[in-house]
């Protein structure tokens, strides 16, 4: 599956002067636009910044933020911060894995959900925390996870 990237990419790149230092902000904007970094976009960015493609790949694979395959409609992030960990984040993650049948970093076959873990969301007082798209759910329990997922199913 290849996304049509040419036009939106030209528009996105136009305000940039083509300085090498802008590589990361450009990658961030491209990902914001497409949800991941399409292959063609990477080639084009390399040309635009006069960098070898290997450098563009090298930089983008270094940072955890960047994804190279399309993600699901909803992204579920489970916080693995210390406070969340000692308050049972591992069991919350396990429950979501079982309910969705995917592991962190994976997307369900129907492209509905992507499961991710994040190092720390910084809402430690509410641990354990999960974030679905932009909504934060605090003080999670295995029981609550089931309810939240069931509610989402109902909505869609």
């Amino acid at each position, binding site marked *: 599956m290849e996304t049509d990237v040419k036009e939106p990419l030209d528009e996105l790149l136009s305000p940039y002067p083509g300085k090498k230092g802008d590589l*990361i902000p450009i990658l961030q904007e491209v990902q914001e636009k497409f949800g991941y970094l399409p292959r063609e976009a990477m080639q084009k960015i390399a040309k635009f910044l006069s960098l070898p493609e290997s450098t563009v790949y090298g930089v983008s694979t270094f*940072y955890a933020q960047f994804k190279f395959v399309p993600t699901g409609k909803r992204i579920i992030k489970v916080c693995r911060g210390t406070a969340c960990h000692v308050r049972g984040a591992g069991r919350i993650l396990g429950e979501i894995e079982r309910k969705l049948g995917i592991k962190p970093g994976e997307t369900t076959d129907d492209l509905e959900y992507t499961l991710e873990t994040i190092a*720390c969301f910084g809402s430690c007082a509410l641990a354990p925390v999960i974030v679905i798209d932009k909504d934060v*759910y605090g003080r999670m*329990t295995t029981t609550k996870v089931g309810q939240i997922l069931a509610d989402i199913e109902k909505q869609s």
Partner: protein
Amino acid sequence: MTFDEIKTKAISEWETLEHSNQPRILIGAATCGRASGAMAVLDAINSELTKHNIEATIIQVGCIGLCYAEPLVDIVKPNRPRICYSNVTPEIIPQLIEDYIINDNPRPDLAMGTIGNGSIKDIPKLFELPMLKPQVRIVLRNCGMIDPENINHYIARDGYSGLVKALGMKPEEVIEEIKKSGLRGRGGAGFPTGLKWEFCRKSPGEVKYIICNADEGDPGAFMNRSLLEGDPHSVLEGMLIGAYAIGATEGYIYIRAEYPLAIERLKVALHQIEEYGLLGDNILGSNFSFHIKIKQGAGAFVCGEETALMASIEGKRGMPRSRPPFPAQAGLWGKPTNINNVGTWGHVSAILQHSADWYASYGSEKCKGTKVFALAGKIERTGLIEVPMGISLQEIIYGIGGGIPDGKIFKAVQTGGPSGGCLPASLLNLPVDYESLTGAGSIMGSGGMVVMDENTCMVDVAHYFLSFTQAESCGKCVLCRLGTKQMLDILENICNGNGKAEDIELLTELSQSVKNGSLCALGGTAPNPVLTTLRYFRDEYEAHINEKRCPALNCTELISYYILPDKCQGCGICLKNCSSEAISGGKRMVHIIDQSKCIRCGVCSDVCPTRFSAVTKVSGEEIAVPSKPVPVTAPKGNKEASNESSANLS
């Protein structure tokens, strides 16, 4: 406009607000408040005010630090102290507005405390509460007090007067003032800030940079986020003062992309100071010009390390390099650069607004001033606190934090994130300062403080931190890249019950090698959680290795769940919720867990009604249960229980 004119205008706006005849409602709407439901509360307030046709000023403020009590709503009525209400829900809002705003009943039952002059019967003073009384709020002076998106609020409370004072001094005098204050870097290492500035100032070069490190990556730490969300100008003022002292013309704020609200607030604040002539060319008519750019991190813990951070700003892989040359000599794009943490910049603005002597009057002999901590984990009152240096761990955990919830026993406190260590109960009297924490095998770090209780397995905690640093190792140094992997494998074996007697010695040896063989602090400190848990909780390692037992009942491979025949009521909730079909039973039959199928997820224990509490967890022992379901013999549970069961079953 001169600064005096700006300030006069700001004060008049602030006073108009303070003396307004309208009620004022302040809602804590930082990320933590929002996560607790502050925005739904805000909607409820708006619609209720409209319904009653009440004119009121609503202000979204930052985090006052009482995270455990969020969402917080404060109501100020004319000539009354401000009342802070905790754990506010949208449902309670109509009642609260009717009772207090309309009928003048302050509802002491819902109130947490009052702020400001005057008192209200049956409501304590907020800053006299045990959570707040021992605190000294220097960096957090404005958090929760002002509208972080309104620069006039900041200016009315002495904001940017520190910058004005600095501009009237010689740069060297400003550095001297910071040196005199005794301020040390709040990012963790504790290097004297004034000295760091002096190196950069004296470094030859026309172009110099300063950087604000807001790449708060330690799991369990959210001090920087709260400060940037609650009072961004205090950080920007610090940067401006630093830039003037060092002679820098350009500054960067390197901030994690995971903090969208903080980034938004910074953008608003930067725009405001540009408009006021506090940023840009010839600031306030002086010869000093300075510009600030925001760079968003892309999710790499190692970028908190200064040389890696600079590589990342340059658009490269964020990998540390060897020093010298130090950033003060050759930093960003090869130019002299000074990096300080968000918190440090926040202290700088306070020092210049007051004085070095004032600042140095707080804290201990060697460590001046205050430190902000994010208090989290197994603790009654979680939150963001600011305490004078030298306060004991005991005072923080039991005084401010209110001790351990659910009557559990304190086991350890973890400071310094993945670079720090776990300190046991015997060290609770330890004063919190750089040297004492380092001496105990931990570090001050950026300010994460995670409390652990008897249910936390210390081997698992060591494994947790190492899996974090292992995954975040940039891969440059062999010992960090591969040594941590070996250590992680050993810890995994121990947690899984496959540990060997010689593992402890091997872990200690590897720890030393990883420390010695790593270029930056990530590898240099990665073994700390392992070393401190080995030092203070060796018995837990030995129980895992020798007895195949996890004393905290935490490590999945070493625990078993059993349904106690004398307690089970045969309600069937556990059976219905077991995802691995490991439970057999029937109506009014004692349920049985098939240990060969059980994945030890613990869901059965979570769903078993508390009045039965029939599911138990053990490690290193077996419990005799019938081999298949038998009729329930326990006294019959009440009706409610069976209703609850059927509700859950549907």
